[in-house]
């Protein structure tokens, strides 16, 4: 193996690629060749680093210097200065706080310093298309350990002891789930990786598959060995072409190394794995729907029992886990259950990856130990609210999660605590909202999504959510009645208990939590016909303060509805009847005379 004095890691995650990281890689390559440094310095395209909004990201090792927003045109300078002369380029470094205006190193950036990267351990460090790099970071060591010295029952005991719980949403203890499938009789069993990731805005599974595909495959193999399965499926949404391509490469390489196929590592254990591209429906992420979809039927949930452990894919005993769940497995096998369970809370062990989005300064993927507070995630890692506005709420758990408030910021993140507050861990979506967000509008937004995604089987989920949505639409249009709130709540509770699968059962969460924590806002919409956050266009009123207006006519010229009247140098007036509330006038007014309420 060639030894290099320096590695330049360029992020090849979806976010950075769309920011131009492929050009950056090519440019580095060219520049290094030109300076005949290409035998000394290796350029590696890696998986996602998590801080996508600062991409394309480049990290230079051994120093660990972290550069953000690197463009093709910056490359010559970076090679010249950093690589050739050893002088890091502070211009491209991360801009920190006042005390530390420039943060040169990865580990010092608050975004990373509070994280604990286990599932994401290799993401951003290795070239996902190179199995050797995975192996160099203890890849396939867990599998070797398991195959050479552990019985299936010991593997399951180890998983149970680790306390790992399913990261796909429900948080079912993984070791326990494996033990059911292991106990199920049958000469044919399947293990399945759920990579459907249907939550809008979620990209943790994608990042793992793109950045470290081997860890998922290895996890599945360890599971297959423990449960007596010899075949696996990875159900990946077709919208993730890069993840699929990386998985294919990884499978081919593992096969070439004899790590997949017949008699793996010289043992009796054989395993093959297939990739199934999903049709992209949210409900196909539900396990029974997912299996129906693999079988070529319409992805629709069915009642359980029978549970997949007894009758799953093609009626054979099957075990399905989420990408992140599988990714944790090899690490648990290498480092031991005790190590894993030392992190987290009493009942929620280890770490969880969240997709931090919304109105925070630093959005991106974060992996944090369970038990961390929401405040730490949002303010320390996320850097607080964008434009220093006021924090209002955080929506946890994807479209069917719940909205929590200021009062919950110090709650420790665990399956139990979130459920107790009315939210869910879900797959780990965290959307931060500031004072300009209307909570009724938020509830409407999420409900619109789940309502469209219902498979159509249950009347509650199919029609009930539609009726709930209608009520929300009425309220945000200023046509709500106070009785609507009761109907809404009653219906929401029925949809929750009356639906067949998790989609219907959790769909009302955003409505129920906002009704619980932000009822005032609903009442303001209904009684005062006002949207306190100024977000519901139907309820806001634009007006011009005659004392401030200088009569420049800019607003009138920019009003698409031509409803602003006034002579030059005289105060202008908006005709609210005709106003379509587009906000153009407010934007263009040079003196801030336009106000909304």
């Amino acid at each position, binding site marked *: 193996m060639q030894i290099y004095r320096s590695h330049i890691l360029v992020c090849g995650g979806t976010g950075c690629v769309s920011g131009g990281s492929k050009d950056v890689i090519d440019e580095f390559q060219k520049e290094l060749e030109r300076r005949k440094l290409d035998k000394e310095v290796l350029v590696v395209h890696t998986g996602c680093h998590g801080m996508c909004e600062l991409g394309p990201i480049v990290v230079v090792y051994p120093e660990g210097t972290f550069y953000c927003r690197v463009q093709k045109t910056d490359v010559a300078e970076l090679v010249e200065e950093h690589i050739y002369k050893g002088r890091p380029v502070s211009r491209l470094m991360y801009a920190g706080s006042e005390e530390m205006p420039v943060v040169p190193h990865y580990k010092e950036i608050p975004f990373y310093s509070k994280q604990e990267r286990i599932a994401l351990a290799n993401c951003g460090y290795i070239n996902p298309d190179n199995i050797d790099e995975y192996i160099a970071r203890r890849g396939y060591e867990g599998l070797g350990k398991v195959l050479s010295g552990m019985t299936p029952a010991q593997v399951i005991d180890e998983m149970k002891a680790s306390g790992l719980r399913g990261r796909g949403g429900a948080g079912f203890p993984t070791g326990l789930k494996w033990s059911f499938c292991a106990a199920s009789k049958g000469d044919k069993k399947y293990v399945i990786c759920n990579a459907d990731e249907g939550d809008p805005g979620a990209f943790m599974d994608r990042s793992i598959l793109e950045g470290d595909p081997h860890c998922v495959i290895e996890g599945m193999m360890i599971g297959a060995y423990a449960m007596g399965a010899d075949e696996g499926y990875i159900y990946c949404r077709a919208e993730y072409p890069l993840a699929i391509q990386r998985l294919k490469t990884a499978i081919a390489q593992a096969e070439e190394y004899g790590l997949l196929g017949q008699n793996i590592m010289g043992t009796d254990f054989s395993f093959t794995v297939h990739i199934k591209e999903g049709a992209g429906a949210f409900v196909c992420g539900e396990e029974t729907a997912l299996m129906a979809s693999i079988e070529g039927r319409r992805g629709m949930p069915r*009642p359980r029992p029978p549970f997949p452990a007894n009758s799953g894919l093609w009626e054979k005993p099957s075990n399905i886990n989420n990408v992140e769940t599988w990714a944790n497995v090899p690490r648990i096998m290498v480092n031991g259950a005790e190590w894993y369970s030392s992190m987290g809370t009493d009942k929620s062990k280890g770490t969880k990856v969240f997709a931090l989005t919304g109105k925070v300064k630093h959005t991106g993927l974060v992996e944090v130990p369970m038990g961390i507070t929401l405040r730490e995630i949002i303010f320390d890692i996320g850097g607080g609210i964008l434009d220093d506005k006021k924090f209002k709420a955080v929506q946890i758990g994807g479209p069917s999660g719940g909205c929590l408030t200021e009062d919950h910021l110090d709650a420790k993140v665990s399956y139990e605590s979130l459920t107790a507050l009315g939210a869910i861990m879900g797959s780990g979506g965290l959307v931060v909202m500031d004072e300009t967000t209307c909570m009724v509008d938020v509830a409407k937004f999420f409900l619109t999504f789940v309502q469209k995604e*219902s498979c*159509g089987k249950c*009347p509650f989920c199919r029609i009930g959510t539609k009726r709930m949505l209608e009520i929300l639409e009425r309220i945000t249009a200023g046509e709500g009645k106070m009785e609507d709130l009761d109907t809404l709540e009653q219906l929401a509770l029925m949809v929750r*208990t009356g639906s067949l699968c998790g989609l219907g059962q959790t769909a009302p969460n955003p409505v129920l939590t906002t009704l619980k924590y932000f009822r005032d806002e609903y009442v303001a919409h209904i009684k005062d016909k006002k949207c306190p956050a100024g977000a519901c266009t139907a309820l806001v009123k634009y007006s011009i303060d005659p004392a401030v207006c200088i009569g420049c006519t800019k607003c009138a010229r920019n009003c698409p509805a031509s409803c602003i009247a006034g002579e030059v140098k005289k105060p202008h007036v908006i005709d609210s009847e005709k106003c379509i509330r587009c906000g153009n006038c407010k934007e263009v007014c040079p003196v801030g005379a336009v106000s909304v309420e």
Partner: protein
Amino acid sequence: MSEITLVIDGVECKGSQGDTILQVARANDVYIPTLCFMDGLTPIGSCRMCVVEAEGSNKLLTACTSPVTEGMKILTKTDRLIQYRRQILELLFAGRNHFCMFCSQSGDCELQRLAIEHGMDSVRYPFLYSDFHNDASDPNIQVDHNRCILCLRCIRVCSEKVGAHTLDLEKRGWGTTVTADLGQQLGKSETCVTCGACAQVCPTGTITLRDFVYRGRRTDCDSQVETLCPLCPVGCKIKAYVRTGSVVRVEGLSTASADGGQLCSKGRWWLPSSTERERLAVPMIREGSSFREASWDEALSLVAEKMTPALESGKAGALISEISTDEELAVMSSFFRDTMKMDKVDGFYGNQLRGFVEGFKPFARQGVRPFTGAHHILESDAILVLDADPQEEAPVVASYIRVSTIIGRAKLVNVSSGKNPFEGITDADLRVSGKEMKALLVALREGGAGGAVPENVKGALEILKGAKKPIVVLGSNLAKTPELVTEALNLAVACGAPFDDGLAVVPMFLASNSLGALNTVTGGKDWLSEGDLDFLYVHSTGMVDEDTHSLNAMTRARFVVVQTPFMVHPLVQMADVLLPVPAWFERSGHYCTLEGDRRKMNVVVPPQGNLKGLGVIMKELAAKLGRTLQEASTAPCENVYVAKAAPDKAQIVTTKEVR
């Protein structure tokens, strides 16, 4: 199976491991409302009407899918449950256009019935006035998606019972709809076999059959009679609905039965339309190119007069429909064979039956029953279709084959000279000419032992070798070569897995009571084409068209008596005397079906006016001829292929034995 004791609404109930709450409740007369559930179809727990509470849990359980457990305490009628059910009904009603007063199913509708039962006099939501497609593309079946509640019964029956897989859901959310062929209108579907099963199971006014709708709701009918469909040898059990003397709709009896309560398109549409066909009400005598009405006395005297000399010269024949009941066949046999001592007696399908019988003979001699109940196809794991076209021959058998293949994952091998009737679901498809068929059957039986197996046969061989319960379907065409029938049975014997009632063979007889005919009216040889007759007595049920072979013989005969319930052309043109007989809905008796049991046909509409039963007519005619009608010497079907030896005792025979 271990017994489970549980308490439902305070009543102690017993059930078995694996039973659902609904099953136990029903067995113990506890009523739980259901909507998507249907006996015999996979329970899917989608409508949520059957929710019940289990003590100690806040969760609601769907009774139709939840298994019982020991000591469970179930409540089915709490206030909370009633609220849920009412809410569901309201959501369904307001979700699409359920305006009962404009719906053809009002009164028959299960949704409406549940709403009334739950005292739903108003709906708390505004109606959505859905604007889904009203699919009128099929000439017989109407699908107004604006009334669909997505119970998925139609989809399930179409795939689980009919095996057509025409229907599925499309789209998601509120706009989810039932669709045919993944996005096609039903009338343009290539997979739909127009059996009407979907309409039969639809609880609402969504899928309806136009004829039935027009002629009245179930609740408008004066009576319902359970009987069988006499159109093909499957003999589907049906329920016939009668309104003002007409059969206005027929339905399969029970989705829970082996045949899934389905009917084929013939049964579905021919039977109810038959009461409207032109009847022959009184005897008629030919006068030139037309007929005149006659009294029974005059007509029968003329028949006797023409029959007597023909009998003496041996130029009298009788052609009897095998769609007749056992009892009718016995009467005909006793009249023509025992009383009149005629040897020229046969059924319309005589040649086909003789061919099969000939091929069966060596096995009959061994005392084994050479075939099995057709529904056993559903239990088999490999199906060999030999020169058959079941969709034409006996459509429900085609359903069995599709269901077994698609749902039961049986392997399907087709061997035919023409096109493959199961294109798309066949695992091995062999095209052979009639001449090559024997060699192929032998090669399959010998499993390649007899020499090199051609490449294309290997797949079929693998399938048969790997099968635990293979079954062979014999096309009617095969009866032309009895030797092939024997070889096919040899193959079934070699596969070595008979069913309890006989060899794993399903022969495609064409006439519905073929088995009943064998001992009675089927002749020993084909005399029909031998020479011209002076007198031919034809008994037709008017249910299927007469074949040209028989019509030609009628044209050549000097004097033809036709007994028929309907004025069927060209049959009636052949007649010199027409004698009316009761139609299928006016008769009762038994049929020996392909399903292996003897099924009862019942009178659906009592005969009117001048009609006489077949027994009476034949007795009177015998009297005119100066004879007394004898007791039938042979009983139909009881003695045909009664197993004397267990089917697994069957031995392979050499085809020479056939000769």
